[in-house]
């Protein structure tokens, strides 16, 4: 029995549920392939982008010439590796953005798709003509981090869907999803408008060369991955708690749901606040596109970590209760 409990606690959302349907399993395999390939390409492209960050005009002319040759070659290799990332790994983004645009409805896919396109096409052009800045490293980092957040979300959702439903938690999920979608919708709309305004201001009034990185950073910031994860991560933490603690009384379930509601609210408004804090910095050009991508990954991981913390707290509470029961009985 002890062993059985230990093994239940090790239940992970990353191990695919056994009763997945064939389409779900296929989708999950593709998501894993996209995620892994995006990370592989990201590591390579970041490496190949490094010489570009070393370059400055104060170098000796012959060194500069040599470095420019190396950068030219490495840009081409980066382009070769970024194309499959943009076409295959980011495919759900394109599909989501196009289908949503057809319905005249803005979701998180739209700014993500715009961000990728705005960073990729000028970089490809710069590689082709052999001069100008490239942002391949930002593109692949953005795709890889976005897919990380989406994969976490998919795992959490599949763990919930195939788990045994609990009426109270399902009701909480329905109401919280509506709230989260509304917040994410307004957030994305406002952020896209701000991004276009900031990009236009940089293009026309300040420095056209800097307009592309600002626009890319703003689009990356507008991606509400953390908000999209807020509800599924807490719901799956609540379900996992139920699975480990076994049948609970009504008052314990109510306490669990109110805990889940509190953590969801923290995650949702915390990530909105974080993105709103970063937006002005991105608008004045202080946030490089890759920093924006990194901050997006951090906020998503914090959301997942917060849900996990709730799960651990619930387990600790149940340990204490079991211990007290054992002491009073003994």
């Amino acid at each position, binding site marked *: 029995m002890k062993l059985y409990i230990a093994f239940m606690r090790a239940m992970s959302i990353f191990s695919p549920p056994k009763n997945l349907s064939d389409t779900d399993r296929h989708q999950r395999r593709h998501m894993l392939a996209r995620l892994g390939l995006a990370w592989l390409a990201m590591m*390579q492209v970041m490496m190949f982008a490094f010489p570009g960050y070393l370059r400055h005009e104060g170098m000796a002319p012959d060194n500069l010439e*040599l470095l420019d040759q*190396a950068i030219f*070659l*490495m840009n081409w*290799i980066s382009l070769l590796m970024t194309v499959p990332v943009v076409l295959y790994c980011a495919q759900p983004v394109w599909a989501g953005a196009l289908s949503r645009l057809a319905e005249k409805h803005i979701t998180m896919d739209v700014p993500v798709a715009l961000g990728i396109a705005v960073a990729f096409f000028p970089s490809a052009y710069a590689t082709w003509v052999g001069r100008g800045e490239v942002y391949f490293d930002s593109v692949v980092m953005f795709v890889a981090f976005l897919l990380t957040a989406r994969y976490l979300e998919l795992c959490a959702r599949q763990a919930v869907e195939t788990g045994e439903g609990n009426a109270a938690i399902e009701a909480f999920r329905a109401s919280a999803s509506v709230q989260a979608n509304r917040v994410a919708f307004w957030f994305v709309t406002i952020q896209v408008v701000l991004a276009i305004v900031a990009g236009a201001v940089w293009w026309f009034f300040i420095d056209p060369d800097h307009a592309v990185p600002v626009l890319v950073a703003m689009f990356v910031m507008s991606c509400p991955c953390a908000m999209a994860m807020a509800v599924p991560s807490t719901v799956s933490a609540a379900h996992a708690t139920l699975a480990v603690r076994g049948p609970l009384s009504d008052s314990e379930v109510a306490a669990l749901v109110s805990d889940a509601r509190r953590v969801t609210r923290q995650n949702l408004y915390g990530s909105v606040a974080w993105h709103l804090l970063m937006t002005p910095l991105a608008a004045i050009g202080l946030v490089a596109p890759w920093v924006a991508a990194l901050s997006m990954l951090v906020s998503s991981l914090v959301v997942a970590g917060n849900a996990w913390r709730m799960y651990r707290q619930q387990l600790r509470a149940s340990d204490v209760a079991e211990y007290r029961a054992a002491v009073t009985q003994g």
Partner: protein
Amino acid sequence: MTGSLLLLLPIALIFVLLIGALFWWAIFAGQFDDTQKGGESILMDDDSPRDSESSSGDERR
């Protein structure tokens, strides 16, 4: 230097393609479909003592 880069960069590219292809194959061969079974098997193992007659039919031994 450019000469060595022309040799080394394509080699790097080939390695990345090879690793990507192997990873792809491993996923669609189902190697990541059940990540829990290996860990559970040590707990699910039936290690109750028994006489040699009954254990002779046990496949896992």
